């Protein structure tokens, strides 16, 4: 049951994140939903089991997120624009049809990953301390 719910929440989180450009959602909410999915996992199973399933360090996830968010800002410098300028392109992808691709998505992905990493790190830090 939990597994099903977990994946529903995960999917919802990704959906929120992707729809954020034109509909309610976005990086911050997406990240929060994703982290709540992980929190659910930790509540149901014990920490070791979850660790085996998700063998990555959430501190690094957060650091990678910050890197993405700051990095996209730097990227625009290379093209002669000011720091953190965002651009979008309309691209014809084979399956999705005409899709809008933007640097803002990368920036938002950075936000989402930072939120996910930080929330899980804090909760794990405290709960590991309990034991």
């Amino acid at each position, binding site marked *: 049951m939990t597994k099903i719910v977990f994946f529903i929440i995960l999917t919802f989180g990704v959906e929120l994140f992707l729809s954020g450009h034109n*509909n309610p*959602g976005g990086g911050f*909410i997406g990240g929060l939903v994703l982290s709540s999915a992980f929190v659910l996992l930790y509540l149901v199973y014990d920490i070791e089991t979850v660790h085996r399933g998700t063998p990555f360090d959430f501190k690094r996830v*957060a650091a990678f*997120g910050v890197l993405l968010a700051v990095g996209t800002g730097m990227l625009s410098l290379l093209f002669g624009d000011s720091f953190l300028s965002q651009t979008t392109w309309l691209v014809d992808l084979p399956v999705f049809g005409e899709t809008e691709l933007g640097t803002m998505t990368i*920036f*938002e992905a950075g936000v989402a990953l930072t939120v996910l990493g930080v*929330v899980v790190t804090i909760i794990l*830090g405290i709960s590991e301390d309990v034991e």
Partner: protein
Amino acid sequence: MITVLLAIFIPFIAACLVPFIHKFLTGSRIGWFVITIPMFLFALLIRLVPSLSEGASYLYTLPWIPSADIYFSTHLDGLSIIFALLITGIGSLVVLYSIYYLSEREAIGRFYTYLLLFMGAMLGVVLSDNLIVLYVFWELTSISSFLLIAFWYHRKQSRYGAKKSMLITVTGGIFMLVGFLMLYTITGTFNLQELIAMREVIAADSLFIPAMLLVLIGAFTKSAQFPFHIWLPDAMEAPTPVSAYLHSATMVKAGIYLVARFTPVFAGDTTWFYVVSCVGLLTMLWGSVNAVKQTDLKALLAFSTVSQLGMIMSLLGIGSLAFASSESTHIALFTAATFAALFHLINHSTFKGSLFMVVGILDHELGTRNIQRLGGLATIMPITFTIALIGSFSMAGLPPFNGFLSKELFFEAMLSLKEANLLSVDSLVLLFPIIAWVGSIFTFIYCMIIVFQTFFGKVHAPVPGHRPAHEAPIQMLISPMVLGSLVVLIFIFPNLLGTYILGPAMNAVYPQFVGLPGLVPKIHVWHGFGMPIFMTIGVIIVGILLYGFLRYWKGIYSLGFLQWTLDRSYNALLQRIERVASVVTKTYMTGSVRDYVSYIMLFFIALVGIGLLGFQQFIFDFSNDAVIEINESIIIFVMMCSSVAILFAKSRITAIILNGVLGYSIAILFVVFRAPDLALTQIIVETVTTVLFLLCFYYLPEWKNEHKSISMRVRNGLIAVASGVAVTVIALLVQGHSLYPSISIYYETASRLAGGLNVVNTILGDFRAFDTMLEVLVLFIAGLGVFSLVKLRRKKGVDHPEEK
């Protein structure tokens, strides 16, 4: 000019790559990757020398934060190219040397990451034209220097030295930043070239002197000028390649660069002359006198670097007098001092770099740098001896080495001061040549100490655990040999350097004198019997005598004022700050969360209260407000009930659930007002917070009714009510005011400008992306903070690994 941008960023990119490449190029082989970077950049930059010597300069501007006048502008001219070539040229040699110096067991990847970080930062300092960008890189050099000094962080002395250098140089940097901000308020620009063009406006402003002194403090701390020099000897705890690179050839010259760069801006005033030349001369004397008493070769070289930096600094001070003169012959007389400064800057990098490498070789092969345990190495290590001889004799100012030429120019510049009495300069400056001469005698003495006490005399028994003395492997000797031969080559062809490198730099320092005859003088190896040569001969004679009788007069170093070191004052100051800080902190850090919350609330109330009273605009305008519907009233009633009920909750779980009711009601309110983003966020935040609360249950004490005194309860009640009132008042006032332009314009432009229909997200990700980025950063830092606090608490009682 993309080359200049590349020069700054390639080292940083390479620094990021080092940890990954280190996986494939294990051990010291990673050095072969690292060395390509400074060599490539050196080649890139030296190609530009011919065009620079014809008067070209390369300015390239990228917008960074245009709204704050911060542009990532780079500027390459004759002055920056000297430093850029030193950074990349000496950098290549140092990396080559370090490949054989560091043992395989060290954290080599980390070492090169820091070194490349420094290289990029230092290139950034000398190549950026915007003061804020310059400041950022300036502090970055301090940080990378900190990391490199503390490379062997398990040693207490390394940590002490790293902290000291960091504290002093970063504090100086902050002073400098304030100076830059003053210049900005005067001129409205951060760009150096524009500042130089506006020098008359700056000179007429009342902030002129404060800005000048603040910028100078930055330069003096970085270039280890008296009394800030105390960090440099302690920085010698770094691995020797680092000392050779950062603490003699490049980083400590950043202050010199800054003074030379700002000469056209500030030098019109004689205050600049007095401060720069007096501090420089004092530093030169103090450094050389202290160098003689050192027994550790590296400490000796550190004090000698302090002294040499002081000498260059004093020359720049004299060079500034050219702005006060009117006749062209006078101008050339004083610009010659700056010429000498730049010439000696290059010479110093060559001979001091080679000397540091020699000391590193001795340390590496013999296991000691103490001159009392060294001796008789001339026949055992002939190549090392030759390099040391060349380096020391050049530093002492003897022919046929480049130090002789610049020393002669130094004396000449000091003697030119007797013309300065025409310029309403105090006749006290006539003492300068004498101080310079005495300083040079001590310089001569410590140079002799390096050569004779290390390489002559009797051979000492090897240090336990080390083989008997032997010549170093050839790979370690290549770099000092290159520098040593440069010392001789510059002596033979000084004018090659003068025309192609020093000439353009002079044009950059004296933009208004470009083309003046005598601005770029010819350097003569022999310029007849004049006062300078007599001074040099005097230095040699007195120096030899004093060196010969060193053991008879060395006792004077135990005299009171020579025993006095600023280190003691520094340590005492640091202790005092720590003591006061802990006393102050203990008064309010009670450990009770209730207290902390009341501080936050009190501060908030004070801020809002003062703000409101200051504006005196209590306009409540409800005319545009919508009617409050019945369903909204119900939600608000639920919220009020649950918040009041929290006060009377009997168990903690009840309180948490009631708090949850409050949170979810707010979410419903958001739904009613059609703010789905906010509602979603609120619901998820509420959920996660509840989980956090449940986790924290373990730590919380028994829920009991605390019997506080009446006055305490009244105080807490007042704070609570006041903060509630403050928030309500703000909420009601907001409608009636428009202090800031409304953001509702984004509703119309979001899809056109940012390509998104969700206006909240276009604001977060595009219009106000800078805010969001900083928020993400803050969140991350807070997360790390919580994590490390939790982890540290658990480790309490376990020995700190560093203290072992």
